[in-house]
């Protein structure tokens, strides 16, 4: 095959329910040190359930093997480059995991007395301060559980502020290149999303906005650099325009990996922004979460931030619930604390210098990939790009090969695909974000794979269209799954 990957024997594994059999067990409990309570007696017979039909029964080794075998079917950052654009799949340092698993943190109960939770509160305070400095904002709430949750919180804040000024307004402008969570959040915040078209080079134009920012507009939701990886050159003037017209500038900070240490949103006019600790700040994605989506704001938003707020009182940290203007809670307790621990560890490991260096390396890696792939793939923009680079499949589409096919073929070459078909403004987009933690060795293997696939698209398009060929599961029929959704296992008639 090629230099990056070969095939190897891989264990099959049925579903848990299929290896289950009565009496197998992986659990033990200590003997009760109190008298047992009869469930029927203390709860009433009809409040007690029958057995949990179908629930698994396996031995301990079967449980471990089951998930170990499953794990071996996954690709992961630990195995190689994972150039999903917009996702910032960087290396997840293991010191972060180590400190997050310290018992005093892991077993802290959210309601344990503040006097016995000073360690947790100190961590949150340190993280709030660091994020404020990195973003150039005045205050931070750590409560949102992910990026989209941060967006929602940020929009709530905007609405609360505007309501306090007498008019929440009606619309939020969202560029056509934005991530789907942006318009979805707008709706959930009770606003109407309005599309802002990008110019040909992928940026927003002041002139367009001049036209669109009416009295109805509560805010513009910008991603900067945007999803093409392009820095919005007019951002300061856009912010001025909005502010002049009583509207606010929200920034989706998913792409902060292009800015940390280089430029601060607070300095270029952003009023509210969310961060994705699971992107820029290296916390692991875990196959889809958990994340953490802190929201950083300018001072005017402080009274509206979710309760509780972390405050310093009598020389120790305390939680302040007495915030009459607060939007209230967006989540029980204080947010994804364990993720915060990891992000703070990352910031501590880097320091200011290190964050800046990481940003520049991320931009360098993306620029290198862009430069090397431009002869083979159609760039989505002529503008300079930062931490990611986007191509379209225009040249390959001529041979009937689409971005989704190229992505699948990359798997055969030992890589996780890039982000497919996003942003929507690029037809057949290939969105590549290498991140700073990839070595030149790995980047070169990636570039070579991409070049070979470009050649295959011309010479043997069918090979690409039917990829992947080297996985234990060949191309999966997603349409069939959606047509008649089977989202849970059920015993097969005639089987145990």
């Amino acid at each position, binding site marked *: 095959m090629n230099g990056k990957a070969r095939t190897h024997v891989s264990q099959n*594994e049925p579903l*848990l329910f299929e290896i289950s059999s009565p009496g197998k067990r992986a*659990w033990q*409990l200590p003997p009760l040190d*109190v008298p047992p309570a009869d469930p029927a007696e203390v*709860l009433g017979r009809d409040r*007690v*359930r029958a*057995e949990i*039909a179908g*629930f698994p029964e396996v031995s301990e080794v079967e*449980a471990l093997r089951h*998930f170990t075998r499953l794990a*071996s079917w*996954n*690709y*992961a950052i630990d195995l190689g480059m994972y150039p999903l654009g917009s996702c910032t799949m960087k290396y*997840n340092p293991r010191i972060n995991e180590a400190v997050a698993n310290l*018992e*005093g943190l892991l*077993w802290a109960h*959210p309601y*344990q007395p503040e006097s016995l*939770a*000073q*360690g*947790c509160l100190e*961590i949150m305070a340190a993280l709030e301060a660091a994020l404020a400095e990195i973003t150039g904002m005045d205050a931070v709430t750590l409560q949102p559980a*992910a*990026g*989209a949750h941060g967006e929602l919180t940020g929009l*709530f804040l905007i609405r609360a502020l505007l309501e306090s000024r007498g008019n929440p307004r009606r619309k939020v402008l969202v560029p056509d290149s934005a*991530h789907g969570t942006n318009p*979805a959040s707008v*709706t959930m915040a009770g606003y109407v999303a309005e599309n802002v078209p990008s110019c040909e080079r992928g940026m927003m134009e002041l002139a367009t906005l001049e036209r669109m920012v009416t009295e109805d507009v509560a805010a513009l939701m910008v991603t900067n650099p945007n999803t093409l990886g392009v820095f919005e050159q007019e951002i300061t003037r856009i912010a001025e325009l909005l502010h002049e017209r009583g509207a606010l500038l929200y920034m989706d900070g998913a792409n902060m990996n292009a800015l*940390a240490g*280089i*430029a601060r949103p607070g*300095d*270029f006019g952003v009023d509210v922004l969310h961060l994705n600790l699971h992107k820029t700040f290296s916390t*692991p994605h875990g*196959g889809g979460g958990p994340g953490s989506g802190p929201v950083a704001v300018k001072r005017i938003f402080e009274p509206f931030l979710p309760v509780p707020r972390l405050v310093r009182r009598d020389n120790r940290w305390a939680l302040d619930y007495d915030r009459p203007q607060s939007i209230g*809670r967006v*989540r*029980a307790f*204080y947010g994804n604390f*364990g993720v915060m*621990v990891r992000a703070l*560890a990352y910031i*501590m490991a880097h320091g200011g210098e*290190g964050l800046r260096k990481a940003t520049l390396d991320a*931009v360098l890696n993306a620029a290198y990939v862009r*430069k090397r792939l431009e002869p083979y793939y159609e760039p989505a923009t002529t503008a300079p790009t930062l931490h990611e680079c986007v191509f379209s499949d225009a040249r390959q589409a001529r041979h009937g090969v689409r971005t989704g096919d190229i*992505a699948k073929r990359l798997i055969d070459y030992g890589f996780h695909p890039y982000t497919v078909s996003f942003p929507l403004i690029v037809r057949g987009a290939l969105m590549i974000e290498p991140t700073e933690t990839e070595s030149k060795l790995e980047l070169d293997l990636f570039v070579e794979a991409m070049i070979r696939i470009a050649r295959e698209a011309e010479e043997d398009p069918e090979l690409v269209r039917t990829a992947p060929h080297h996985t234990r*599961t060949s191309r999966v029929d*997603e349409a*069939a799954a*959606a047509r008649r*959704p089977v*989202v849970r296992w059920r015993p097969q008639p005639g089987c145990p």
Partner: protein
Amino acid sequence: MLAALGLNSLEDLVAHLPPEVLLRRPLDLPPGKSEYEISGWFRARAEENASAYACFLGAGAYRHYRPVLVDVIASRGEFLTSYTPYQAEISQGTLTAIFEFQTMICQLTGMEVANASMYDGSTAAAEAALMAARITRRRGIVAARTLHPEYREVIRTYARFAQMPVTESAYEPASGNLDLADLEARVGEDTAAVLVQSPNFFGVVEDVRAAAEIAHRRGALLVVVFTEAVSLGLLAPPADADIVAGELQSFAIPPSYGGPYAGVIATREQHIRQIPGRLVGETRDTRGRRAYCLTLATREQHIRREKATSNICTNQALVALMATVFMTVYGKEGLRHLAEQNLAKAHYLARRVSRRFSGPFFNEFVAVCPRAPEAINQTLLEKGVIGGLPLGRFYPELDGCMLLCATEMSRREHMDLVAEALAS
């Protein structure tokens, strides 16, 4: 690499940014630290927290033993460091585990479909209310006052911006159960959802069927919320609910000062297209072999954008995996035994104190305090015990009460200390 790009320095890479946006000074952060220092700093923080205390707090975050397999599996790089399984062919591990998770949640709750996870129980409850509004095309929410107070706050926030009115229904002052008459009175023609927690915030097991009847009579949906998932091992599943929204923290997810946890929403087949969040479905690969993939993406924000069922994107996959491993380890028999131990422990403790409510309870209950709850807790702290949650903060009328929780990890000698402190 710079050379390959024709550049002289890294700075050149950002030279095209508008000059006014560039930060002209180093970030004001302490210099980068070594692993050893970082680990030292966090250890010091961890030591500032309570440790080696026995603890009788519950109230939405429970101390259960975490089987060692949970971390062994969840710390494997292939689970820990992968993204959302968009690319099915190299994500069958995660996809299969989620499919199993969805199945087990259905088996536990008596529902027909479950999603791949929500941020936590509180946001699951709020999103369940929004979902009910979409299904019923109504706007009103009736939340039981016995629903976790912080969950209610979250619901209020979400509802406020969705312009959905929220009312709260009372509890019976004697039993601690839902006041069904009051509920009946509050459910109206515009009620989309009735939200009831069972076991409720006081630990009392609710009559889900009665609540369902009241909701259904007016065309509203019943959302049953749970915060103590271990109770599902023993209690009749909320099969009369239209939507179940819960928190799985009890399933080997560390208390971790409040998060990350994992919420979940389960419902009936007929509502599948209104469920928020990710779903994994079964399908085939081109060679006809069983395979799994994310499905019904047309509900989701990346396809439907402003018309999506929710904005949720990243969820709590790894934490849901912990819960999946937990369910696998305990299994059918183990979960029941575990729940029975919780029941026994809590009833042992309850028998030794003065209970505020008479309703049946699982592993939490409200105790009446002879002195201020804070004073009792102070006494207990000196003996290495974190007592119960004083309830005055959330329920002024229960000012002299505390919520106590006992689990399989509670030891008799510590329960005796609590009983003693509550006797004096």
